[in-house]
Structure formats: structure tokens, C-alpha cells
């Protein structure tokens, strides 16, 4: 089974993946373009998404080795290589973090990640922020039917130009969420 999905929130992605696994699937591949591949299985699997800063090859081998010793199988990493997808058979030890300190560090790393993606998208979005240029200027002088046809034709392109702006909002929201989790864990 292949499914296409786009996520801006790593926790929602993890939740969705585990919902699929609970329906009796295991994940076999995730392409960076958002195509998730699943296979039917009789066993129960769980997935956990980890976020790590850039790991040089040696560091990555050590990181992967420790997770594998605990029974986790490495599926893949995300487009920029920072999100790591782990899957294992459900055996009751299904978490990758077992104390508050490491949990809060995880959210701190996530905060950095969504912050930079949000800024990056804003940097891409700002040159397009001139709303009067979203549509061709000739459009507004058209009349009746012709106007509507041209308007409908151009709208997808206008939305495309605005997409970095939307993306930056989505990443901004996940930054806010990670920040809330982080301060909750930190407070106690």
C-alpha cells in the first residue's frame, strides 16, 4: 500500500504512522517526496521519529548501532536528513526516550529545526509578498466570463507563489508547539 502525505509537524506524522501500523501494517519505505509504503503484517509494530542534528558518518554508525541493539530498525531519514524514522515490533519497550531530560532535549532540537525552516520559508516568501503582483495586472481590466476564466486559471499559480508563506506559518506553529512541550518538561 502506498500513501501520499505531507507533514509539517513531526508529532502528527508519528501519530499518523502509528495509526497505520495499528491497522496491521508495517512501514517499509518513506520517500522524501512524501510517499509512504506499507506492507500487511500479522505482527504489531510501532514507529518513533527522532530528530538529530547532522551526524557525520562515524557518529551515525554509532547512533544507529545503539538503536539497533535495542531492537529498532532504521527506515530512512527525511529530506534534510534530520528526522530519523525508527520501527520495531511492539514489545512493551516502545519509547526512544526514558527520562524527562532527554525528552526535553528532543523538543529543544525540534524547536531549532522548525525555527530555521520557518525563517528559510519566510526568506523565500518575502520577495513574493507583493500582493498586487500575485495576478497579472491585465487580469483586473478583463470583464465578465473572460475575467472569471482567467482568474480561475491564474489562482493555482498565485497560491503556488504564496506557498512558502503558508509553509512558514506551518513551521511557525510546530515551533510554538515544540516550545510549549519543552517548557512544560523544563518547569517541573
Amino acid at each position, binding site marked *: 500500500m502506498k500513501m501520499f502525505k505531507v507533514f509539517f509537524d513531526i508529532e502528527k506524522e508519528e501519530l499518523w504512522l502509528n495509526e497505520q501500523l495499528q491497522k496491521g501494517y508495517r512501514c517499509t519505505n518513506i520517500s522524501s517526496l512524501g510517499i509512504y509504503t506499507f506492507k500487511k503484517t500479522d505482527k504489531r509494530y510501532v514507529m518513533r521519529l527522532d530528530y538529530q542534528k547532522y551526524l557525520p558518518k562515524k557518529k551515525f554508525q554509532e547512533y544507529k548501532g*545503539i538503536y539497533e*541493539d535495542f531492537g529498532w530498525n532504521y527506515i530512512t531519514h527525511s529530506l534534510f536528513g534530520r528526522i530519523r524514522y525508527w520501527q520495531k515490533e511492539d514489545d512493551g519497550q516502545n519509547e526512544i526516550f526514558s527520562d524527562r531530560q532527554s525528552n526535553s532535549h528532543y523538543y529543544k532540537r525540534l524547536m531549532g529545526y522548525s525555527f530555521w525552516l520557518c525563517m528559510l520559508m519566510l526568506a523565500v516568501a518575502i520577495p513574493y509578498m507583493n500582493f498586487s503582483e500575485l495576478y497579472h495586472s491585465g487580469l483586473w481590466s478583463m470583464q465578465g466570463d473572460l475575467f472569471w476564466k482567467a482568474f480561475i486559471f491564474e489562482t493555482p499559480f498565485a497560491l503556488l507563489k504564496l506557498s512558502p508563506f503558508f509553509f512558514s506559518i506551518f513551521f511557525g506553529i510546530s515551533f510554538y508547539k515544540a516550545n510549549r512541550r519543552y517548557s512544560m518538561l523544563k518547569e517541573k
Partner: protein
Amino acid sequence: MKHHLLPLSETMHYILLALREPLHGYAVMQKIEELSNGTVILAAGTLYGAIENLSKHGWIEPVGNSGRRKIYMITAEGRTILKLEQERLEHILSLYEGSESNEDV
């Protein structure tokens, strides 16, 4: 100023205690399960992060390999930290005993 890892978290404390003998990552987890009578079971990400953190501060260091696994052991600096923590905990324990004897009176 006090080191930001002090007082040691339960995880860090157990890892330093376990690494008074050379062990690789997964064996550290097993050793801690045994030392804590099954009450502390570390997860993969927590163990990996803690090993990274403790090596960064020079409290543990890699001392060899067993296959692809790195073997770690506590350093002299790490032992100093344990000594400090021991004194801190002993002091707290002495306060426990003190308050009990007060109640007896």
C-alpha cells in the same frame, strides 16, 4: 559555578556507576537494569544522548571496540564527580537520620 549536569540525574548517575567497568552501550542499559533492581530501564535515545553528553564533558571515554560497538569507561574526572555526588547524598542521608532521632525524643 556548579556544573549544569549537577546534581546528576538518575540516568547520568547510573551510567557513571555502571561504567566503573568497561561496557558498550547496550550492556550499560542491562547493567543499569540489574543495578536498579529493574526500576531503571533506559531507552535507546536517552542512552545515546547521555553517552554523547558524558563523553563531551570528558566524564567517560571510549576505551576500545567490541565488533562495531564502542566500549566506554569512566574517566578520572568522572570519578571525581561521583565522589562529589556521594558526599552530597551522604549529607542528605545524614539529615534523614537526624530528623528520625529528633522524633524519638
